């Protein structure tokens, strides 16, 4: 039944998935080609000169860095998007390549090498006439492992705003759409299996003790010309693709955080801007890590605007002390202007602040209605929140201090997985956002912040001033949405996407029509 849903989703949104699959292949392929070239060269250097063994240690070390952390490291240097993803993928792909090349070369029978040497081969001739062909089956099987790994890992690249099928998975997770997540996963698995099969056929041809090899030999299929030719063709295709997809001047690059409401707002902005002006919108939805990865992208100019919350800007971006309230807005605006040359434009009108929710069962059992009620029984309850809640100044620690909470355990969870976790009783208490669509659920009870601990998080657009100057019409378009969306509107739209499984694009369109904006 679920599988049926997956296939009907795939056929409904055929173009979306085909596009993601092509992007996925492109990102993987670029990383694979570079990893093969660089990995072979490094592998040869390590095996030919023993003193270069340290290269292997470094590559081993880098391989142990968790992929998400590595993606995060790269963003300040190479920005959000495909380039960071490709670099990270190459770095991971190097280990199997270098190791495979190295062990392929050093395990060759010493007598064979000495025979070649004794017959008057130079060091380089021994390398390319004897060592590399003999190591080829080994190298080919490393390439196979590496390619499958890279195709799978490319799924994570969506986390830092790169394209590919990870976009579908990530969107599925953040909007609580399991069918979407499954569709993305199945396509990645299918890609990996197909490519692995093709490579296993090629791998057979490289084995010199099997009859296939004679076929290759007879027609001289493995020689310098074919290898260089194939490489050139791949590079040309990739270069042409890069060239054709270069963004035009009249494009506004919009980023959104991985939250359902931001997918909806992103879609609204895209539709509104494109219908009200000649500008094109390039929307990068659901950038992993949210503000911490979008802000560097804004500074680099990869993104022109994104929806942000005032309290987040104050504490997480400006790193100001103290609790934010809207009387500080002028300070916020001028600090953004001075430090980053960004402006806050167009307050949407809803406040997406934190709240604390428990299941109805827990609320009834302990008779909870306020945070102070919760404090007295917190040592019996398990708390869950997304990881940045533990890091924020107004997050977990401050909250515990204010109310004297002392939970039995704490868990890091992705925003999109929290509601499932509480329904499955994996956690008892969680933080929520006041616009969460799933708050409509009668089984979840939001407690009252009786000491008014939480700051204000009004939603507005953060825009680069340079873009506002280049495209003066943009500001007026953004102001059309000022005060247009209440917290109830937002919560209902979130509900439509998360629970009723509507497309963010359709929900955004219906809302714009309702408000008479399109």
């Amino acid at each position: 039944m679920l599988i049926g849903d997956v296939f009907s989703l795939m056929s409904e949104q055929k173009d979306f998935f085909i596009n993601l699959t092509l992007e996925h292949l492109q990102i993987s392929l670029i990383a694979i080609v570079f990893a093969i070239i660089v990995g072979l060269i490094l592998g040869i250097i390590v095996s030919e000169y023993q003193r270069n063994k340290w290269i292997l240690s470094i590559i081993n070390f880098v391989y142990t860095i968790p992929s998400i952390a590595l993606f995060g490291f790269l963003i300040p240097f190479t920005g959000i998007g495909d380039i960071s993803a490709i670099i990270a993928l190459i770095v991971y792909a190097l280990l199997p390549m270098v190791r495979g090349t190295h062990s392929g070369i050093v395990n060759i029978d010493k007598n064979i090498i000495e025979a070649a040497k004794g017959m008057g081969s130079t060091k380089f001739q021994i390398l390319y006439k004897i060592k590399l062909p003999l190591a080829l089956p080994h190298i080919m099987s490393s390439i196979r492992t590496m390619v499958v790994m890279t195709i799978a890992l490319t799924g994570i690249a969506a986390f830092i705003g790169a394209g590919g099928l990870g976009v579908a998975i990530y969107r599925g997770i953040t909007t609580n759409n399991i069918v979407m997540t499954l569709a993305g996963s199945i396509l990645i698995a299918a890609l990996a299996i197909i490519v692995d099969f093709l490579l296993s056929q090629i791998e057979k041809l490289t084995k010199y003790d099997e009859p296939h090899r004679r076929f290759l030999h007879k027609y001289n299929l493995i020689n310098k010309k074919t290898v260089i030719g194939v490489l050139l063709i791949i590079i040309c295709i990739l270069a042409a693709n890069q060239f054709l997809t270069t963004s035009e001047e009249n494009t506004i690059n919009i980023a959104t955080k991985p939250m359902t409401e931001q997918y909806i707002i992103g879609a609204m902005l895209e539709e509104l801007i494109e219908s009200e002006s000649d500008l094109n919108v390039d929307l990068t939805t659901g950038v992993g890590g949210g503000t911490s990865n979008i802000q560097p992208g804004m500074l680099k100019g990869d993104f022109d605007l994104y929806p942000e919350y005032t309290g987040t800007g104050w504490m997480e971006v400006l790193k100001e002390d103290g609790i934010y309230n809207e009387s500080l807005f002028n300070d916020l605006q001028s600090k953004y202007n001075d430090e980053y040359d960004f402006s806050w434009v167009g307050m949407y009108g809803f406040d997406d602040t934190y709240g604390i929710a428990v299941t109805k069962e827990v609320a009834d059992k302990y008779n909870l209605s306020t945070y102070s009620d919760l404090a007295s029984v917190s040592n019996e309850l398990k708390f869950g929140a997304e990881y940045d809640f533990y890091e924020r100044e107004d997050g977990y620690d401050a909250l515990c201090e204010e109310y004297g909470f002392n939970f039995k355990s704490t868990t890091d969870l992705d925003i999109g997985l929290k509601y499932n976790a509480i329904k499955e009783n994996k956690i008892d208490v969680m933080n929520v956002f006041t616009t969460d669509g799933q708050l409509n659920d009668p089984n979840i009870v939001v407690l009252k912040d009786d000491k008014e601990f939480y700051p204000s998080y009004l939603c507005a657009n953060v825009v680069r001033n340079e873009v506002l100057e280049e495209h003066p019409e943009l500001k007026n378009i953004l102001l059309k949405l000022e005060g247009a969306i209440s917290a109830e509107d937002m919560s209902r739209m979130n509900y439509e996407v998360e629970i009723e499984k509507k497309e963010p694009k359709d929900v955004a369109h219906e809302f714009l029509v309702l408000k008479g904006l399109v």
Partner: protein
Amino acid sequence: MSVAIEFKNINKSFDEKKVINNFNLEIDKGDFITIIGSSGSGKTTILKMINALIKPDNGQVIVNGEDVSKIDVVDLRRNIGYAIQGNVLFPHLSVKDNIAYVPKLLNKNNSEKSEEAVKKWMKIVNLEEELLERMPYELSGGQSQRVGIARSLAASPDILLMDEPFGAVDAITRLKLQEEIKRIHNETKITIVFITHDINEALILGDKVLIINEGQIEQYGPPLEIKNNPSTDYVKRIIGNV
């Protein structure tokens, strides 16, 4: 008769252990020399000094009048055939490409010339032409050795070094190969230095036999002389069961 290979006051140690001790020898052009000695006697070390795979600690190795430490070793090796024990054909190359290996290194852009050399040497070592496209794993032990010999001779070197080339084949094949290498020597008149651990093989094949022990020459002379006048107890023991 001129000298093809000359060793002058050679010493060599590996890890403090003396392997070759003040070794002096002249090998005449066109001679077929067999070297015999127990394992560890230094016979392979001597052989590998001729094509500079091993360098002496002191002393000179002179090949065709030139000190090998003063010339380009790659050029030197291309003019010296080299066949070693075991099956060390290049497993990823066909019979044809194995034999053509050195000719291709020499005349890179003249594949016709290489092809001619391959066919010529296939015939000389008694290999049927239909084996040309075979891969090494498809050959019998005797065929492999023949290809190995053809490969070492394909660039028409004037010196051929062989390190127990028939060590891994059965007795009948070995007899055939011995006859053939003798015939090839008679036809080509190249200088052959041939290591064996089989005294019969040494006596049958060699124009001169060199018996070494612990890095020093025990006796060097024609087979008859060795048989009739063994100069040391070691030589007597070695030829004892002939």
